[in-house]
């Protein structure tokens, strides 16, 4: 950020618009079963909502919304959710990533649908955290 002075319009608009982008991103992730969308697209939009506040309000203020140190842990958590879903299925007797063996009630095909949802949540979490982390890492050399 080369401009030190705050522009109230940009700050306010980015603050107001960011939660709505996040809501729509969650819709894209969770409605991926029925319409175009899914983890990658929704995670990118979640990251875009965070980066909008990063760009609009400046680096210090935006730490209140999403801290710089949260990016990589969140990305790791997403990869672990994906891997863990497959691993739980493997521990309970199936092949790796065979969602039929997840410990959920319901018919086999419904359980596979739930497995897809967990996997999409993992992908979305990982993509969001890692995109924000890459942005923060690239700004790290900025003397400010």
């Amino acid at each position: 950020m080369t401009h030190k002075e705050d522009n109230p319009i940009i700050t306010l608009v980015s603050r107001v618009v960011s939660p709505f982008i996040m809501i729509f991103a969650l819709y894209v992730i969770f409605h991926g079963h029925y319409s175009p969308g899914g983890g990658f697209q929704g995670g990118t939009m979640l990251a875009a909502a965070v980066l909008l506040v990063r760009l609009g309000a400046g680096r210090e203020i935006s730490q209140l919304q999403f801290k710089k140190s949260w990016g990589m842990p969140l990305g790791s958590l997403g990869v672990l959710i994906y891997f863990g879903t497959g691993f739980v299925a493997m521990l309970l007797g199936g092949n790796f990533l065979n969602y039929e063996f997840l410990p959920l009630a319901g018919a086999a095909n419904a359980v596979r649908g739930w497995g897809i949802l967990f996997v999409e949540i993992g992908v979305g979490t990982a993509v969001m955290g890692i995109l924000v982390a890459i942005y923060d890492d690239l700004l790290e050399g900025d003397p400010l």
Partner: protein
Amino acid sequence: MKFLNYLILIVFGGLLIFASTGLANRGDADAPMNKETSPAGSPGAAYYYIQNAKKDAHTDNMVTVILADYRGYDTLGEETVIYTAGLICFLLLRRREEEEPK
């Protein structure tokens, strides 16, 4: 010369639009490309996916089923690629606190 550029552009765009009218409908199991069989004579994967995606995973979006269920390994690899990119940026660019000059 500029006129020729625009002419080539319009002709090529028209050609693409004309070609797109010959494409099969999405999810059409009877389209020739989905009727392809392997050299051993078994039906191709696309035909199976179109017929069974909804039944197998109780999910309407065929693309989601293929991405996350049938091709789960592939998506796990994609996610690992993204994670590796983020990890490399972290390791190369992040400043460590204790090495800051005091």
